[in-house]
């Protein structure tokens, strides 16, 4: 006998008949009737009219019947709120039933009835159930608090349910703990203020970690997800959490594994990346991630989307696992496409041969979307892994020979990118490309081909004919192709003006007179005017160097990436969008960020620090006031000159005058600086080095160094724009660093036209936030302009931190020298010493290293020197010089002896200058 019979009544008076059956005295008949009602409900019939009759059946000792009635109530209570109240009494009574199954059932169902009047009556039973002796009831009640919060958050807060829920976190039963955690996380997430209502503290975390070992797989997920919202106070705590979570990576349930990965990824952010512990952790992450690829395809899909994030955040974890991402013939298409994406991210010189042979295989498959993506991937490999470019190009050529239309078109699009990345390298293949001209019917492929012809017009003998043939159908082309045609013809004309004048006039008239497209017309007019007024300028504009194309495409912006790492295994991690982008209203919750590294509480003298996550940089950059509110500092103000000349002469003697303007100086006119430089004794500043090469900065090239003039530190920058477009909107931000160095003024660089460079002097102070870096003198900088945000790190030469008041009294020097324990003494040998002790001493004074005393002991010159760093660290030195010798011994004593190597570097560079 099966239940299907309940579905088979279609008489006209059905409702009426059911009504009478429901009111039958016989229990069996009643139950049959309720089943029929539920069956009708299941197939979507409206049986709400039977509400009072069904509710009448609620008071029964038959559990099956009771469950059915409850189910009915959940479905229809909302449409019949007034009648639903009839059920309250039974609910309240059931919450006190001797059978825990019924108590739990009652409290569970009551929470699902979203009718205000019922909710009022829920509080008392719920309070009792939260303290029930049976864990099954308690765990059900815990979830019910979250249900109640969803209906009426005020009620939950007023009635003290939050505290009761918090108490359940210490429950002896792990299932109760797990559900309480789930309920609390849910409540925290929907908190109206955006602030969590219940904060987790270290002792609760401990309880959760204990419960983690004992609760069901689902409970483990709830606990892990909640742990991922916790920020440990120091790296010790983070490490202990990691240790207790790592065993979860061996769980058979993929959701448990991914949630554990999420917590570990977050904790690793706090831990020092270069420790053995962190390295071990990274190693442990790879195998479980790989195993996720043997799970069900849907789970694989989620795993792959997450691996995509993890590979971007920590490329090392999976760098040896390329092969597991090879596509299988029977993988679903969504798995294939994701695998391909990850393969490109992992492609490197070491594995490129394998990757290419796979990609070539994929390019011959049937699924068009997959094939296209595979062809595109080959192009991306060429751009990413330079030594493989030639191989990629020949693979693409092979594919073009297959003559499969969409393969050819896709190949031409990517070859265009390869030409841009490696100009003048592969033009031998152009003839092969031209053979396929007629088969191209997609705008992107046509536009790419036209671009190639224009770019290499001087090498293609019949370029004019080819372009001319395109012009015949100019009006029918897609706008993208029209624009490319216009530019290509102009290029052709500039390169081979002899016979192409008619052609260029034709295309200009097509673009400016026959087209409705404003972009096309504008471009046409610009070319026209350029060509008619100044052909040389036109050449420079049209045939200028192209801006570089980046190696990695589709990289997520670092702040977003960090946020998504906090959301591993959730929908956000699959969409690669923050939850705010797809979750409505307050439940979108607080935006999560990765924690910044925190040093251990006691370990104040720790050498290693993690490179902090970049979001702090960007956050500051964004909040920084960039724009018109900054008053423009006039270039080379005359007032400054007066000040300078009328100022303290000592300053002039000890060093070049301080350039207080800090403004933009065109590089050709070093005016004031130059003048003073020549009169003042030479003070050493390290030469500029390349901090940001143009290919990393999307055309922005930065050379820089640091200087200190008359107590004013500055960052000296040469900003070069190697891109096609003008750069502006410059702003700069420093990461926390060991000496609190930060910009003293907003960066005030106006517009940098393409191909131009300018010098900029950014004044610095030491009032910024302090965080120990490794090496100590590392400075991480974020530079922003209208193109992007760039990050680079540079080393601060220690001498710019030597202050002007670094002279110690002789006696103080002596006592201090004695007081500093000998463990804090470091020796160093200086090479290539030239000149006498006096000459060296005066050279040193220029850099704020002051000689306190000089003695001659047994033919050797002893110089006692002192210096003070901007952060008030005193360094005492003894320099032993043997006349005529090229080496000298330097002994250093300081309470913060870790600065020693950098002071030695300064000595070396000052002496060599």
């Amino acid at each position, binding site marked *: 006998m099966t239940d299907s019979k309940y579905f088979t009544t279609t008489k006209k008076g059905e409702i009426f008949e059911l009504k009478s059956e429901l009111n039958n005295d016989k229990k069996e008949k009643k139950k049959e009737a309720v089943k029929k009602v539920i069956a009708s409900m299941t197939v979507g019939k409206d049986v709400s009219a039977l509400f009072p009759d069904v509710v009448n059946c609620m008071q029964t000792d038959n559990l099956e019947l009771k469950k059915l009635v409850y189910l009915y109530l959940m479905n229809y209570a909302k449409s019949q709120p007034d009648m639903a109240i009839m059920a309250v009494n039974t609910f309240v009574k059931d919450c006190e039933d001797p059978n825990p*199954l019924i108590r739990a059932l009652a409290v569970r169902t009551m929470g699902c009835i979203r009718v205000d009047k019922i909710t009022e009556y829920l509080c008392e039973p719920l309070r009792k159930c939260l303290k029930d002796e049976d864990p099954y009831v308690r765990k059900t009640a815990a979830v019910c608090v*979250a249900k109640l919060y969803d209906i009426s958050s005020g009620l939950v807060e007023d009635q003290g349910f939050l505290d009761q829920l918090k108490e359940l976190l210490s429950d002896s039963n792990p*299932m109760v703990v797990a559900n309480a955690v789930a309920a609390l996380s849910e409540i925290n997430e929907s908190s109206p203020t955006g602030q969590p209502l219940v904060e987790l503290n270290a002792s609760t975390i401990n309880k959760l970690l204990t419960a983690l070992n004992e609760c069901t797989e689902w409970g483990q*997920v709830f606990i892990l997800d909640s742990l991922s919202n916790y920020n440990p106070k120091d790296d010790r705590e983070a490490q202990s959490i990691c240790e207790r979570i790592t*065993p979860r990576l061996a769980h*058979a349930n993929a*959701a448990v594994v991914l949630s554990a990965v999420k917590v570990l990824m977050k904790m690793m952010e706090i831990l020092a990346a270069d420790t053995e512990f962190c390295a071990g952790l990274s190693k442990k992450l790879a195998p479980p991630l790989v195993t996720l690829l043997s799970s069900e395809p849907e789970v694989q899909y989620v795993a792959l989307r997450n691996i995509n994030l993890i590979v971007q955040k920590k490329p090392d974890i999976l760098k040896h696992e390329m092969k597991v991402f090879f596509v299988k013939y029977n993988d679903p298409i969504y798995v294939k496409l994701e695998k391909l994406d990850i393969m490109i991210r992992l492609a490197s010189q070491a594995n490129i041969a394998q990757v290419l042979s796979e990609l070539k295989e994929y390019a011959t498959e049937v699924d068009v979307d997959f094939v296209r993506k595979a062809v595109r991937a080959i192009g991306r490999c060429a751009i990413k892994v330079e030594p493989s470019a030639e191989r990629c190009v020949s693979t693409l050529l092979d594919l073009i020979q297959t003559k499969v239309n969409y393969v050819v078109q896709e190949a031409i699009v990517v070859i265009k990118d390869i030409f841009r990345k490696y100009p003048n390298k592969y033009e031998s293949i152009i003839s092969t490309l031209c053979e396929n001209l007629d088969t191209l019917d997609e705008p992107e492929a046509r536009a790419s081909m036209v671009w190639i012809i224009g770019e290499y017009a001087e090498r293609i003998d019949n370029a004019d004919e080819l372009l001319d043939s395109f012009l015949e159908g100019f009006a029918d082309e897609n706008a993208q192709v029209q624009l490319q045609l216009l530019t290509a013809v102009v290029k052709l004309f500039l390169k081979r003006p002899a016979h192409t004048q008619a052609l260029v006039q034709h295309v200009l008239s097509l673009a400016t007179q026959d087209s409705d497209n404003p972009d096309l017309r504008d471009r046409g007019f610009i070319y026209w005017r350029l060509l008619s007024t100044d052909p040389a300028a036109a050449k420079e504009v049209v045939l200028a160097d192209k801006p570089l194309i980046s190696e990695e495409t589709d990289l997520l912006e670092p702040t977003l990436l960090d946020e998504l790492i906090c959301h591993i295994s959730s929908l956000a991690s699959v969409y690669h969008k923050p939850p705010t982008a797809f979750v409505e209203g307050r439940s979108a919750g607080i935006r999560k960020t990765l924690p910044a590294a925190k040093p251990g509480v006691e370990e104040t003298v720790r050498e290693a620090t993690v490179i902090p996550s970049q979001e702090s940089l960007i956050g500051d950059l964004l909040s920084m006031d960039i724009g018109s509110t900054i008053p423009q500092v006039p270039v080379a103000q005359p007032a400054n000159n007066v000040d300078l000349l009328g100022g303290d002469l000592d300053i002039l003697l000890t060093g070049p005058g301080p350039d207080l303007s800090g403004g933009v100086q065109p590089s050709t006119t070093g005016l004031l600086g130059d003048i003073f430089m020549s009169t003042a004794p030479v003070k050493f500043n390290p030469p500029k080095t390349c901090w940001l090469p143009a290919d990393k900065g999307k055309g922005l090239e930065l050379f820089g160094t640091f200087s200190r003039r008359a107590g004013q530190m500055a960052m000296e920058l040469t900003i070069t724009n190697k891109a096609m477009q003008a750069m502006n909107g410059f702003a700069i931000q420093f990461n926390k660093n060991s000496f609190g160095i930060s910009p003293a003024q907003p960066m005030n660089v106006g517009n940098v036209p393409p191909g131009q460079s300018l010098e900029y002097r950014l004044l610095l102070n030491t009032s910024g936030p302090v965080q120990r870096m490794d090496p100590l003198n590392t400075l991480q900088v974020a530079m922003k302009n209208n193109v992007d945000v760039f990050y680079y790190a540079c080393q601060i030469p220690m001498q710019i931190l030597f202050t002007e008041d670094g002279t110690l009294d002789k006696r103080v020097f002596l006592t201090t020298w004695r007081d500093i324990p000998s463990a804090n003494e470091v020796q160093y040998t200086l090479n290539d010493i030239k000149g006498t002790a006096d000459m060296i001493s005066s050279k040193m004074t220029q850099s704020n290293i002051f000689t306190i005393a000089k003695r001659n002991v047994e033919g050797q010159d002893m110089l006692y020197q002192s210096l003070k760093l901007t952060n008030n660290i005193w360094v005492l030195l003894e320099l032993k010089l043997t006349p005529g010798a090229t080496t000298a011994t330097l002994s250093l004593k300081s309470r913060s002896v870790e600065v020693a190597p950098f002071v030695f570097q300064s000595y070396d560079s000052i002496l060599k200058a």
Partner: protein
Amino acid sequence: MSSSAVYILDVKGKVLISRNYRGDIDLVVIEKFMPLLMEKEEEGLLTPILQTSDCTFAYIKTNNLYIVSTTKKNANIALVFVFLHKIVQVMTEYFKELEEESIRDNFVVIYELMDELLDFGYPQTTDSKILQEYITQEGHKLEIQPRIPVAVTNAVSWRSEGIKYRKNEVFLDVIESVNLLANANGNVLRSEIVGAIKMRVYLSGMPELRLGLNDKVLFESTGRGKSKSVELEDVKFHQCVRLSRFEIDRTISFIPPDGEFELMSYRLNTHVKPLIWIESVIERHAHSRVEYMIKAKSQFKRRSTANNVEIVIPVPHDADSPKFKTTIGSVKYAPEQNAITWTIKSFPGGKEFLMRAHFGLPSVECEDTEGKPPIQVKFEIPYFTTSGIQVRYLKIIEKSGYQALPWVRYITQNGDYQLRTN
């Protein structure tokens, strides 16, 4: 924070049964599901997650049924999918086959199950053995009301107390599946072993079990580094195994569920010779015929034998008039799969067999391009593991002190075993 509602739909998208857990999404959104799915399929952008302005659908497909979960929040989507598969597993264990008919036949129990599996979108008890103790298909004919099994909220949520067997026995099956991917040039691109230890436990009471394997990490830490051992790359355990204990000293200790379950799985990358190697020469004469010469080689020890070897060779879908010649086994053409299957019942180690096939091709060529499906091989080699893994002992301790016999069986079989062709 997972499912707002769960639906089971038939292949046309009609709702067979559903349960609304959170009431934050109107149940009728499901009407958008099927049109959206078809639209995405058309565009070639089908993923198991579909987004609409109202909610997100996450679905799996099984036996022509769609199991769909909706959510409005940033749900833990990995949890949702694992859970959806779990629903299928539980219901299959309840009704043997989860299909349209069995759903109609058991809708009352399904409603009860759905109430117990998930609460407010949070998965609760999903162990079908335990569920069967208080949710049964028989209705509750007995007058005694069902009670919650202690196991539901116990730390040992997978086993009930008071189980009794006259004869206490444990069966261990060590099953290794070999995944292989080779390219058309005969190079092995990937070879990996996915092993599983499956158990059938017929033990009384609450037995404590400890399993000893020749695990390399364990051997090295206990100074037996020289003995033959296996390096397991990634191990996954059933929830009954104490993970923290394994992490500390590599001991596999657990209280098993009753009956059949998978205790653990492991994975290792190996560079062993492919157990069965296929060389294929395919000559296509366009518009007339295509000829296959397939050589199958067994590259394992002579004393082992592979059983039920099936070599599936794809052929063009417009091929006709098949002719075969082989020295061993039988060859069948399955036009519905566009493949021929060469079956060899018993394939001893160190042997080599040959098969030739000949097909006619129509003179008019078909428009659609065809992919190049790989050759697939199925086989089973008993009493043999590729990795060399061994069960050293299985200790069974129960307070009543009974003796129980463990039986161990080893078997190696094909996993994803694919050889690409030209």
